[in-house]
C-alpha cells in the first residue's frame, strides 16, 4: 500500500502518524470520561433530590457510615494518584523499571482500598444496614445487634421515624460506592494489562500513550471518590 509508511511499530494502520494516533487516543479517553461523569451524575442527581427532600433523615443516617474507613481510603486513593503521576513521569524520561514499580505500587494501593471497602461493607452487613429484607434501623437495629436499648430510647424512638429514608440513603450509598468499587476493580485489570505491556518493554519515551491513558482513567476514578466521600460520609447536618 502506497500510503502505509509505518513509522513506528505501535502505529496502527488507520492513522497517518504517531501524533495523530496519540491525539485520537487521548480525545477518545476524555470522551469516555465524559460518559462516565454522566453515568455517576445520574446517581448524584438522585441523591441530591432526596438529600434536599429528607434533609434531617439523611444527615442522621450519615452518622452510621464509618467515616474513618472512608477517610483512610481517601488518603490511599490520593497516594495512588501520586504513584500514577510518577509512572507517567518515569515513562516520559524512559526509566522503565521505575515505571513498573510505580504501577505495582498503584495496584497495591488500589487493592488496599478495595480490602478496606470490603471490610466496611461487612461491618454494615452485621449492622443490618444493607437495604434488602434484612434492613432494620433505629432501636430495632440495636436490639438485633444485641445492644441494650434504654427505656428512654424505647419511649422516644428518635431515629425509628427515619427508617424509610435511611433505607434510601443506604441504597444510594451501596449503589454509588458499589459502582465506584466496580470501576476500581476494572482499573486494577487495566493496570495489570499495563504492567504486562511494560514488562514486555513496549513502553518507550517515544511511545508511552498507554501509561497516560490508563493514568487518566485511574485519576478519574479517584476524583469520583473525592466527590463520593464528602457527599455520603461528611454531610452530617
Amino acid at each position, binding site marked *: 500500500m502506497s500510503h502505509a509508511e509505518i513509522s513506528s511499530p505501535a502505529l496502527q494502520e488507520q492513522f497517518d502518524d504517531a501524533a495523530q494516533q496519540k491525539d485520537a487516543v487521548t480525545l477518545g479517553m476524555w470522551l469516555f470520561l465524559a460518559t462516565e461523569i454522566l453515568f455517576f451524575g445520574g446517581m448524584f442527581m438522585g441523591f441530591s433530590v432526596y438529600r434536599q*427532600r429528607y*434533609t*434531617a433523615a439523611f444527615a442522621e443516617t450519615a452518622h452510621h457510615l464509618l467515616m474513618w474507613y472512608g477517610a483512610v481510603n481517601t488518603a490511599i486513593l490520593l497516594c495512588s494518584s501520586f504513584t500514577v503521576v510518577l509512572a507517567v513521569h518515569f515513562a516520559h524520561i524512559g526509566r522503565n523499571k521505575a515505571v513498573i514499580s510505580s504501577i505495582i505500587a498503584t495496584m497495591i494501593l488500589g487493592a488496599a482500598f478495595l480490602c478496606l471497602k470490603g471490610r466496611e461493607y461487612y461491618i454494615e452487613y452485621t449492622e443490618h444496614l444493607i437495604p434488602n429484607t434484612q434492613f432494620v434501623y433505629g432501636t430495632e437495629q440495636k436490639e438485633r445487634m444485641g445492644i441494650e436499648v434504654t427505656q428512654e430510647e424505647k419511649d422516644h424512638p428518635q431515629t425509628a*421515624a*427515619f427508617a*424509610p429514608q435511611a433505607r434510601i440513603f443506604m441504597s444510594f450509598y451501596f449503589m454509588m460506592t458499589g459502582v465506584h468499587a466496580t470501576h476500581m476493580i476494572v482499573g486494577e485489570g487495566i493496570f495489570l494489562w499495563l504492567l504486562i505491556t511494560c514488562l514486555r518493554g513496549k513502553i518507550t519515551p517515544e511511545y508511552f500513550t498507554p501509561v497516560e491513558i490508563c493514568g487518566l482513567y485511574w485519576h478519574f476514578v479517584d476524583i469520583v471518590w473525592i466527590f463520593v466521600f464528602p457527599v455520603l460520609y461528611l454531610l452530617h447536618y
Partner: protein
Amino acid sequence: MLHHFSLFPQEASTIAPQVDALYALLVGITVFFSALIFILIAVFAIKFRRRSELDRPADVHAPIALEVAWIAIPLMICMVLFFWGAHLYFVIERPPENAIDIHVIGKQWMWKIQQPNGRREINTLHVPTDIPVRLTLASQDVIHDFFIPAFRVKQDVIPGRYTTLWFQATDVGEYHLFCSQYCGNQHSGMVGTVIVQTPEEYQAWLAGVTPNESPVVNGARLYGSLGCGTCHGVQAPTLAGLYMTKVDLAGGGTVTADEDYLRESILDSGAKIVKGYPAIMPSFRGQITEEQLFDLIGYIKSLQNPANQINISPDRPLTPAINHAAPMEQDNFPVQHQEAPAKGW
C-alpha cells in the same frame, strides 16, 4: 363550530371549549404549513424536473431575509402557542376555592371513589353540573392516570403522594373515564363512567344511601384509636388550625401544611421534622389504608375551628370494614400481587 363535528369528542366541561379552541388553531397551523410544504415540493418536483442529463443548475444563494423570515415566523407562532397553552394550563392546574372535594383511589384495576358525604362508589363518578369539582387522587399500587376525554382533563395518580384534578361539568350525561397510564394486565379494563347530573339530582343521589359515617367522623375515630391525641397538643405540635399554614422545619426552611404534607407526616414522620420538636412520632406506613388516610386528613382539616373537635375515646374499636389490609400494605412483595382482577369484575 367544532363540537358539532363528530370527529371530536363531546365538550362537557368549562375547560373543553377552551382546549378545543387552541386545538383548532393548532390544526389550522398544521394544515397550512403541511399544505405549503406539500404544494411547494409538488410544484418544484414537476417544474424543475430533470430535462437533460447535462442540466447544471446554478447555485441559488440564500437571501438573508428569507432565512431570517423562516426563523422568525415559526418562532413567533410558537410563542403565541406557548403563551396561550401555558395560560390554559394554569387554568387546568388551579382548582377554584369553592370546589367540592371528592376522593379517588386508583388500584390495579379499579377506581374507588368517595363523595364528600362519605358515599362510596366504584368505577363510576357522580358529579353535578355547574359546580367545580376537585378530585384528590391517590394510588394504592402503581402509577395510574385519571382521564375524562369529554372534560379534556387528565392527571397522573402517583403512589406515595396526592395529586389533584378539577373540572366543572356543563352537560348532563354519561362520559368515559379511562386510566391512561399503563398499569399492568387489565389496564384497558380500568375504565368507568362519569355520570353528570343536575345539582338537584346529584343532591338527591348523594342522600339516596346514607353512608355509615362521614369521613370526618371516621377520621376522628381513627385519630383516637391510633393514639394521635396522646402526643399532639402535648409534646408534639397541635393539629388544630394546622391545615394550609406555614410550618418551620428543623432542617431550615418552611413548608405549607397541605394534604400532601399531612399525608407524608403520617406515613413518613421522619421526612420533615417540625422545628423545636423531637422526632418521636412513629411511622404509620403499612398500618393505615389509603381510605383511612383520606378520613384522617379530612378530620385534621376539619379542626380549623376548635369547636369542631370530636372527642372519641381511644379504646373504641375500628369498624371491621376499614380494617382489611390492602395488598400494598402486605410486606412480602411483589409476586403475589398479580391477583385476579379485583372483586366485582
